[in-house]
């Protein structure tokens, strides 16, 4: 299957039951909800906000399988692969491939990635799946210099770059360096998101877009097409507030689930360690935001 990286690619949060097992029927509903939106180009499963670090290998494979079963034909399922060695990454990548992944997002292991160019090359060769490389934000500990980034994007199997670079000038420089080689998905969930998208991008991959994916997808589309005022209008009125409220390091997954729970979409906001649960103050902030935006049912 040819993978086109265009539009919004939400990183999907992982619904859990009370016993913290994977609530797969909720997940099916989530995936199908995204697939109905024409400006959503696909989904990323087993990403950080999908609690990949808390999932055993067989659980990661199950997540991919459920997403694949839920998705309509041709709807890309990009599976995160997080491993310390390329051998482990290859094993996990092939698991994901076997269960229906259409591409892999190469996430850094606990100690980053040694020899990243080789890592990507060997993973591409051993799985045969298209790869999306990941460029972290300044604080992430995973940030390739432009030379390394260019070499990664030169690998035949690498088709995309998900980048959380949050400095527009740096982003523009890197974007211009790789734009002819790969599709670029913006993952900068900061106040300058619109400007980053407007600098040039194929799409975006946003954790926060689990909540209100349709307006997020329209905003992304507007910004990329140069309709910056239209993008800004929605972003300033609500998008930036969602980011401020829901993006909070280890609490991001729980905060996002809290918003979805309060919107009557998910049954709970449970997370597995190392993700951090929300406290009453967090919940009140989410409730206030959703309430002020008229997003609370009833």
């Amino acid at each position, binding site marked *: 299957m040819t993978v086109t990286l265009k539009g919004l690619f939400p990183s999907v949060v992982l619904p859990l039951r009370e016993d913290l097992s994977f609530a797969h029927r909720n997940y099916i509903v989530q995936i199908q909800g995204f697939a109905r939106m024409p400006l959503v180009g696909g989904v990323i499963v087993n990403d950080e906000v999908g609690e990949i670090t808390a999932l055993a290998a067989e659980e990661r494979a199950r997540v991919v399988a459920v997403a694949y*079963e839920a998705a309509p034909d041709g709807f890309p399922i990009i599976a995160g692969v997080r491993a310390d060695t390329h051998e482990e990454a290859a094993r996990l990548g092939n698991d994901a491939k076997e269960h229906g992944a259409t591409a892999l997002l190469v996430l850094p292991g606990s100690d980053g990635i040694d020899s990243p160019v080789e890592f990507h090359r060997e993973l591409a060769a051993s799985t045969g799946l298209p790869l999306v490389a990941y460029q972290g934000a300044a604080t992430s500990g995973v940030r390739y210099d432009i030379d390394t980034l260019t070499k990664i994007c030169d690998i035949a199997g690498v088709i995309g770059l998900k980048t959380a670079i949050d400095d527009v000038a740096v982003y523009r420089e890197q974007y211009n360096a790789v734009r002819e080689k790969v599709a670029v998905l913006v993952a900068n969930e900061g106040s300058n998101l619109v400007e980053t998208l407007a600098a040039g991008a194929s799409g975006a991959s946003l954790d926060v877009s689990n909540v209100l994916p349709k307006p997020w997808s329209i905003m992304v589309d507007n910004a990329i097409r140069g309709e910056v005022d239209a993008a800004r209008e929605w972003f300033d009125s609500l998008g930036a507030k969602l980011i401020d409220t829901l993006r909070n390091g280890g609490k991001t997954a729980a905060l996002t689930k809290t918003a979805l729970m309060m919107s009557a979409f998910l049954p709970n906001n449970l997370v597995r360690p190392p993700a951090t649960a929300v406290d009453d103050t967090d919940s009140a902030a989410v409730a206030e935001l959703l309430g002020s935006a008229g997003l609370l049912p009833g």
Partner: protein
Amino acid sequence: MTEGTKYWNPDLPAGEKDCPEYWQRHFDNYDADLTRGRYHRVLGEMRESCPVAHSDQHEDGYYVLTRFEDVQFVHKNPEIFSSYPVVMPWFGNLRPMIPVESDPPLQKKYRTIVNPFFSRAKQAEKESIYRQYAVEYVEQFAGRDSCDAVTELCYPFVLRVLIKQIGVPEEEVPTVSDIGERLVAMDTSKGNPALELYAYFTKLIAMRRENPGDDIVTVLTQGEIDGEPLSDMEILDYCMAILPAGFETTASAFAYAMLFLAENPNIADELRQNPDQIPKAVEEIVRYVPPIRGLYRTVMTDVEVNGHQFKRGDRIMVNWAAANRDPDAFDKPDELDVTRHPNRHVGFGHGAHLCLGIHMARLELKVGLEETLKRLNDIRIADVDGVAERPGATWNMERLPLTFSYVPAE
């Protein structure tokens, strides 16, 4: 001022906008100018002139499919055409109503849980109960010569049957009936009926877990998918769909049946003399005026239908009312022929989403009409100006003033 002596009068003009070009671009399923049968004429004109029309109404607009073959194609391919949201404008429910808005792979699994309860055989066991309710409602007309068939017969009878089958205790039936009636009428004067119903069903689920019965909620509390029980949230999503889907639709069919019996006394006489023909009449009435005129689908994969290329995310209305009058599928489609057979209409839907309660609805309508025709002779419209329809996701009668002569059943 009433135009014509009959209420049902499709040839009446539907206002100044009544031309095919207007409807092709702006068709609105809820247009109040399409009452009195004009809906069916207008859709017939659309089917002939533009079988894949695009309306700019509701959110981003939607396509309207009117050919029988096209409607069937959509219904046969639920993987391509998602059922969520099933109506436009969207209710605002983020979670799909189960199973009507569920898609594969869950849709079939959800239906499998309740299929035995709604089977023809299981429903046949309940005929005497349904008949008893019907008799109670019709016999209230003893000594009278007029009624409002909608509020005194069709609605309360169907609602009572459904509420009891859901598992509501007898003493709570009036409360839930009140909520149900306000829900379908979108009446928020006493509060939000959807939230009230949600709270009530939450309580009922707990009650049926403790005290199981022969009812839908009990079946759901005991239901499993792949060895895992349904969550309370899933059961709630089921219940919230079943009440409006099972109540207003059947009540509507009953009310339209009464309208046609009143305006076509020859049909009423024929059925009174040959009650074994009533099941065929039920099918024909649902073909002729389906309570749900059509449902909505979302395209999940780029696909071509009838020469039109649809893209992922496009919204489509599959118009059952128009498909049921397609001359390529039905002989003399604009005639109400209660002897029609075979009658492969799509008034109950088609394919994976065929009406879950089809056997229940058929049985309710059969016993309702049988017991009515046994006791009410010379049924007529009391006042054509007093008849009122309510366009909606389910089209319904609001008022149907009738006169009759009451005769005790033998």
